[in-house]
């Protein structure tokens, strides 16, 4: 790509690093307000029950100011997945619910002068549960014996298809079928959910919280409190990770309600157990894949049925099914394919966004099936994939946006070379001992770049150059820890040829940021908001030059912008941009400012391939990832250090999905893995060094050629690891996570 890039493509240090590393950064839990109250939620301990709450004793605890239950709240239902009113979805949640529908359901809020009084009161609240029979797991939901709401537990069902599946299967020499399951996963952000709300002196509700979509919080809060949008100010606070977990409003509406009722600031914090049980999780799924192939290794047809555990409320029932379905059509070139997605209500934690949004689940099973298909005809798994992957600029077979500059093929070939694929395949078995088995495996994955083609995908930017020589960009972005602000700065810096430290980009605040249609989700920020910032920067650059010409009487062609200075060619008289901004105000009677709307022009696909080597302990069932290589088609990295951070963190999550992470829920609906001693994430001793390769071939519709990376990173490693385990043991494990127990079971069953 363009070799002359000056700021884009550089691993510049992000501004917030020092504060975060030194502990100076202030998160919501560090914030204090005068006269502030503390609050905590009471979460249901039963999966499905009528509830009667006796708060008499608890109210006697000194310092307790209020305890609210369903009886006290406005009876306005909402759907926390809705990020703007145009998303149609069943509204079935209240800020406090009338019934317990899962262990972790919000049934009361306790507000008091101190944290201690609140904790004491929580213990004193008596909840009488009249337990109903429950629905735990997809299979139980399918039976429709106990129906959670409406006439059926099937909350959403839809088919997506292209070609003619029956005809295509007739042409197939083999049909390979696999059934796999994926688990509920906790996001495990270091910062737990938190929120601080207060009513200001003119009656606005101000809410500080780590969130992904301020306008979604604003919409839901305004709706449930029956306030105008314009009176609700949501400020995205510094965030200690989200991974989708802070996407849906959980605490915002109830915290705002308490602050409004009590007319005092209220800080509501969850502990780890609350977050694991009472927020959202990655949807569990049971996926059936049938792939028809020819002897020479071409996929002719595929049928996928994904049954999804949607949890107790509707939330993302439709979105998760469609997200899984759409990905199925964008990795391999398959003429005939049918995808059926069914999302079920269960009495478990509701589904929500979780890094990858359906991609980790669908690829987790389809990529194992691809390996089995290749194995069936004795073809190398990489070669089989190379035979079938999509080509650049291919059309989406079900009418979604064009795939763009899709470089999956390069990812595979580049990875095979770096990983020494053929040689290692030959030699891997030589390492085996009585106790240890070694294997290699790989998997591919795809993801998107925003909502274009499905939902409105635009953002507004207000960009100014101030007389103080600061470029001030207002755009509704939420840095979740990925370095979003730095990414935007480097894009603007590149356009304006100015040091990124002179650029200030406040994060989303509904009273400051111009409206953004969909928030920091769906892998849209670099591609869409970055595209918007680039366009806005181009427009203000144009204006800067025009004004400079007007003020100095010269022609545009002779103006040079370099290192933050603007000057006439061959002139030694250089001006800062700020000087021109001041001149603009003084002599042209206007601000050096641009307001604009940017509509996403496309929704190209991104691709990744993961290659791994594993060592499996046949006695303890423990798996060690000995080597892992991640190859990513990202168009152009804006900041390669941030990209590397994404790839490493994504791999950490995906390895966890493959081997140990699982929200375990027993038949009574109780969450067994309620804290980090029982919910196992991959920790430092188990974390392999992540090797990586970037394919940077420029996506023409992205800013400087960039496309998304933050979600796709969490997709391919998991199936690559299971493929490697199956390669090592000659098994077909398709149940996630492949815990030691499951590995020993597979070995025992094989014998």
């Amino acid at each position: 790509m363009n070799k002359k890039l000056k700021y884009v493509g550089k691993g510049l240090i992000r501004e917030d690093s020092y504060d975060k590393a030194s502990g100076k950064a202030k998160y919501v839990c560090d914030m204090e307000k005068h006269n502030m109250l503390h609050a905590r939620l009471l979460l249901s301990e039963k999966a499905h029950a009528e509830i009667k709450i006796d708060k008499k004793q608890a109210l006697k605890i000194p310092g307790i100011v209020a305890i609210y239950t369903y009886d006290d709240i406005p009876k306005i239902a909402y759907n926390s997945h809705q990020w703007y009113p145009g998303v149609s979805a069943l509204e079935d949640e209240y800020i406090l619910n009338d019934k317990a529908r899962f262990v972790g359901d919000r049934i009361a809020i306790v507000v008091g002068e101190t944290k201690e009084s609140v904790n004491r009161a929580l213990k004193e609240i008596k909840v009488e549960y009249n337990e109903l029979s429950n629905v735990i797991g997809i299979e139980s939901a399918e039976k429709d014996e106990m129906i959670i709401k409406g006439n059926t537990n099937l909350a959403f069902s839809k088919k997506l298809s292209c070609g003619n599946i029956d005809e295509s299967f007739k042409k197939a020499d083999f049909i390979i079928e696999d059934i796999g399951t994926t688990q509920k996963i906790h996001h495990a952000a270091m910062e737990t959910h938190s929120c601080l709300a207060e009513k200001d002196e003119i009656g606005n509700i101000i809410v500080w919280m780590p969130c992904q979509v301020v306008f979604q919080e604003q919409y839901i809060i305004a709706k449930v409190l029956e306030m105008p949008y314009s009176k609700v100010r949501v400020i995205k606070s510094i965030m200690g990770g989200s991974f989708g977990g802070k996407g849906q409003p959980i605490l915002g509406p109830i915290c705002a309600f308490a602050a409004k009722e009590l007319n005092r600031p209220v800080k509501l914090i969850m502990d780890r157990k609350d977050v694991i049980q009472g927020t959202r999780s990655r949807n569990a799924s049971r996926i059936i894949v049938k792939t028809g192939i020819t002897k020479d290794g071409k996929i002719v047809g595929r049928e996928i049925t994904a049954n999804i555990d949607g949890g107790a409320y509707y939330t993302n029932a439709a979105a998760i099914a469609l997200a899984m379905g759409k990905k199925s059509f964008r990795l391999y070139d398959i003429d005939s394919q049918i995808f059926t997605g069914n999302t079920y209500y269960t009495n478990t934690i509701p589904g929500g966004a979780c890094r990858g949004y359906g991609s980790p689940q669908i690829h987790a099973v389809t990529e194992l099936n691809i390996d089995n298909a290749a194995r069936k005809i004795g073809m190398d798994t990489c070669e089989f994939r190379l035979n079938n992957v999509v080509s650049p600029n291919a059309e989406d077979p079900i009418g979604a946006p064009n795939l763009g500059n899709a470089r999956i093929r390069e990812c595979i070939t580049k990875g095979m070379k770096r990983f020494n694929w053929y040689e290692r395949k030959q030699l891997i078995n030589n390492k085996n001992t009585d106790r240890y088995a070694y294997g290699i495996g790989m998997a591919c994955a795809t993801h998107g770049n925003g909502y274009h083609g499905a939902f409105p995908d635009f953002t507004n930017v207000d960009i100014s150059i101030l007389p103080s020589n600061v470029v001030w960009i207002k755009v509704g972005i939420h840095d979740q820890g990925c370095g979003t602000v730095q990414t935007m700065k480097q894009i603007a810096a590149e356009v304006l040829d100015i040091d990124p430290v002179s650029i200030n980009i406040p994060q989303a605040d509904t009273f400051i940021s111009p409206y953004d249609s969909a928030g920091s989700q769906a892998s849209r920020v670099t591609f869409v908001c970055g595209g918007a910032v680039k366009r806005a920067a181009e427009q203000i650059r144009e204006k800067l030059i025009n004004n400079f010409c007007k003020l100095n009487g010269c022609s545009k062609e002779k103006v040079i912008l370099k290192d933050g200075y603007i000057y006439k060619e061959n002139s030694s008289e250089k001006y800062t941009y700020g000087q021109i901004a001041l001149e603009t105000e003084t002599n042209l009677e206007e601000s050096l400012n641009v307001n604009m709307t940017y509509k996403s022009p496309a929704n190209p696909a991104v691709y990744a391939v993961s290659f791994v080597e594993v060592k499996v302990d046949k006695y303890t069932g423990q798996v060690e990832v000995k080597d892992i290589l991640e190859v990513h088609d990202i168009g152009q990295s804006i900041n390669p250090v941030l990209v590397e951070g994404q790839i490493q963190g994504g791999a950490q999550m995906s390895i966890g999905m493959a081997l140990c992470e699982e929200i375990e829920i027993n038949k009574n609906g109780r969450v067994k893995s309620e804290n980090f001693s029982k919910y196992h994430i991959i920790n430092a001793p188990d974390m392999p060094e992540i090797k990586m390769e970037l394919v940077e071939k420029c996506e023409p519709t992205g800013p400087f050629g960039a496309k998304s990376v933050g979600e796709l990173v969490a997709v391919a490693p998991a199936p690559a690891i299971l493929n490697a385990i199956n390669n090592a043991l000659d098994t077909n494990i398709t149940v996630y996570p492949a815990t030691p127990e499951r590995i020993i079971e597979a070995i025992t069953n094989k014998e």
Partner: protein
Amino acid sequence: MHKNKFSAPQTLKELSKALKTKKENCFIAAGGTDLAVKINKNRIFDYSIIDITKIQELEKIEMINNSIIIGACTTMQSIENSEILKVYAPALVKAASKVGSTQIRNRATIGGNIANASQSADTLTVLMTYNAEVEIINSQGKIVTNKVNDIVKGLEKNLLNQDEVITKIKFKVEDNELSSFSKVGARKAVTISKINCCIKIKINKSNLIEKAEVYFGAIGPKPIKSEIVENVLVGKKFSKEVLSVLLDKSSLQVNEAIPTRASRYYKRIAVKGLVDSILNDLIEQEQSLEGDLYE
């Protein structure tokens, strides 16, 4: 409202005095790594704490004649780095090094690990293998000695009286003794034992195993002695050849200990991994012993 009290005696005498007023919801903190979790989890708001980690004499590791004496407040980290223990009780060093995280090991103590009496406690398995004893002080300043096995009930229950505190851990060691420990949890490190094992053997001059002590942890309320496995070892030549029968008998032992638990299918195989690792470690220890002899 109740006022929470905190005291930190600096001598055993002060400790006895403090114990005189010990009532329900007065806890002994010997590192506090389990205690803090319990207080939080059980939402205990009104309590008192006697912190015994300021009593310096409870932090020593000594060897007197053939006896190892470890102060109850010796941290896992100190045990892990003790030169005496590395030579005379390598299994204990290994067990201590596998407890929790680095941060936990910097605070967690051996006395606390015993008194907490978790079914998954790592050092308990080793201490029982060494037939260790504990010295206990009470509010009268009286000191009694008891077997670790006799004061640990398991499942987080001990048999100490309300006014009793463990002060020292003692066990005997012999020449030509080898020992090792291994555990398997959900992951490599910072993990709770699903099953753990300690083997201690004494080898005679003709390289025969003269004595063997074997305990398995986390397959019962507290570690269990495995005569099945001990019997396999005693009288055998010490070499890799005992491995296959050792593996089978270990599986058998697990089956007998937990005949009905769902986890048996996994644990009876996983135990092979423990025993394999332990045997490899013992062979390594023996070779380095031999190396020392030839030097």
